[in-house]
């Protein structure tokens, strides 16, 4: 009977499954296959060899990793205290804080990114403030370099870290912290031995999410980098729309996918180890 129910269930699911396979998975498989194919010779690894030979590709890949890492770290440094602060707020203030964190989600990424030009430009808010304060004579160059790209990405992706962290933090029972205090633990010990470990799974998941989103970011690096901060997605854009060299683009995408999968596998391993013992 249960197998009968399963097959009826399958009949309902089948159209969706076909859509998934045809619309999403097949193009990915085709794209991945493209990197191993050559019209003249069939199977080949020469596109990957090409990547290794031209240093520009590896440099862009390394660049991307570094910017993603810095933006992710900046997210943690800002996001963790922010989420912790929100946990301590009263109900109404907390609601306002959540709204302020989520609000950027509802504004187009494009608009938000251009807003940074207004803020960070040579005649922008920050530079005028710095000059007015006498901290600098010349405008500081925030835009069209790695700094601007990192600031922009950290800002755009902050909610992806703050929201899961905040959700984990409000689930921590205050009585756990009170129990730890009554057992003699000073505030620092309570934080590191009780509070922090309970937020680690959410922190890891959020960090991973932000890092992976950073790796594939297009709009913000394109605008705030002004073409001078090449990241993988911008390189892909060039390879596909301007040169065009689809095989090379496919090979780079494959490497990016593998990097993401490796990081994800490492996370799963850590997570399983943490919940198993």
């Amino acid at each position, binding site marked *: 009977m249960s197998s009968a129910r399963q097959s009826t269930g399958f009949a309902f699911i089948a159209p969706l499954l076909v859509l998934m396979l045809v619309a999403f998975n097949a193009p990915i498989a085709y794209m991945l296959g493209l990197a191993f194919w050559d019209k003249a010779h069939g199977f080949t690894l020469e596109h990957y060899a090409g990547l290794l030979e031209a240093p520009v590709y590896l440099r862009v890949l390394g660049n991307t990793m570094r910017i993603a890492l810095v933006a992710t770290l900046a997210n943690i440094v800002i996001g963790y205290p922010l989420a912790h602060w929100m946990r301590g707020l009263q109900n109404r203030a907390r609601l306002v804080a959540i709204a302020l964190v989520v609000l950027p989600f509802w504004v187009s990424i494009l608009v938000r990114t251009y807003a940074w030009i207004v803020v960070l430009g040579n005649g922008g808010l920050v530079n005028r403030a710095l000059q007015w304060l006498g901290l600098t004579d010349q405008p500081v160059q925030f835009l069209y370099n790695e700094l601007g790209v990192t600031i922009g990405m950290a800002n755009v992706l902050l909610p992806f870290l703050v929201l899961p962290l905040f959700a984990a933090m409000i689930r921590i029972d205050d009585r756990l912290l*009170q*129990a730890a205090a*009554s057992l003699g633990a*000073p505030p620092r010990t309570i934080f590191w031995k009780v509070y922090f470990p309970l937020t680690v799974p959410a922190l890891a998941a959020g960090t991973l999410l932000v890092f992976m989103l950073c790796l594939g970011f297009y709009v913000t690096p394109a605008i705030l980098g002004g073409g001078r901060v090449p990241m993988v997605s911008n390189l892909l854009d060039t390879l596909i729309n301007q040169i065009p060299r689809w095989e090379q683009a496919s090979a780079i995408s494959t490497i990016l996918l593998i990097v993401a999968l490796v990081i994800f596998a490492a996370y799963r391993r850590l997570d399983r180890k943490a919940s198993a013992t």
Partner: protein
Amino acid sequence: MSDIRLEGVSKRYGAVAAADNVDLAVAQGEFVTILGPSGSGKTTLLSLIAGLNRPTSGRIFIGGRDVTDAPAQQRNIGLVFQSYALFPHMTVLENVLFPLGVRKINGAMARQQAIEALRLVRLEGLEARRPSQLSGGQQQRVALARAVVFKPDILLLDEPLGALDRKLREELQVELKQLQRTLGVTTLLVTHDQEEALSLSDRIMVLDKGRPQQVAAPAEAYLKPANRFVAEFLGIANFVGLEGGQTGVVRPERIRLAEAGTAGKPARVTEAVYLGQMVRYHLALENGGAGAPLVAALPFVGRALTPGEKVCVSWEAADIWPVA
């Protein structure tokens, strides 16, 4: 091991007093229960003693030391919550080791003490489990072991058995009492369960609206309640009119029933509740005498009376306790 002394302790939230000028002295090694309905301020009182909260006024002494302004960390108190409050990311053993690690007791020495504490609560062999893998009763035992492993000056228990089912609760009551006697630790328990208060404590403080109503040994509080509130909150109270307009309390098991037509007040059985060892009869006095319905509790011997039967009700003058 220390005594606890509260002197005029109050905690006000705006106009509301959760604790209102409470005096209490708990002797060294004594087991005292704070008993009251929800909202009576009993948990507030406990949190003030534990240092999780500061009193608006009054002083708190533990072992003669004024701890009113000391943070929880410096009070050396074993605290057990109704919700257990075990650290979910640690094993049973790690939970019990936690207060020792904080006190810089580590290694084999700490391990030995932790295992000993777990043995006291009969949990040996479960050291490597996570709290989520234990039953409610086991979790509460871990919380107890964690609260006593560092030899606290006093033990504070906040409705520790409230989340457990009845049978387990009764089992753990006995164990708790034995543990407390073995360790000889001064213990303050908070509960709304009058049976628990009566069975565990050396003395009971009955609390209502933040104000202590009576502090007495269980039997005294039960048989000689200080006022109507205590009389009604502790068990079932029959209020009878006395000469001079006073009111007296007679407990159900002091009520005597005899065949109709003999000495006593004529009454009719309105309900008979079979309780195993006892039968509880709800009675209505005939000819409207004395107003309030009575409750009698009698040992079940042979045959129970049935509703509608007529009986005669009497009680000894010595079994009446006048209340205001």
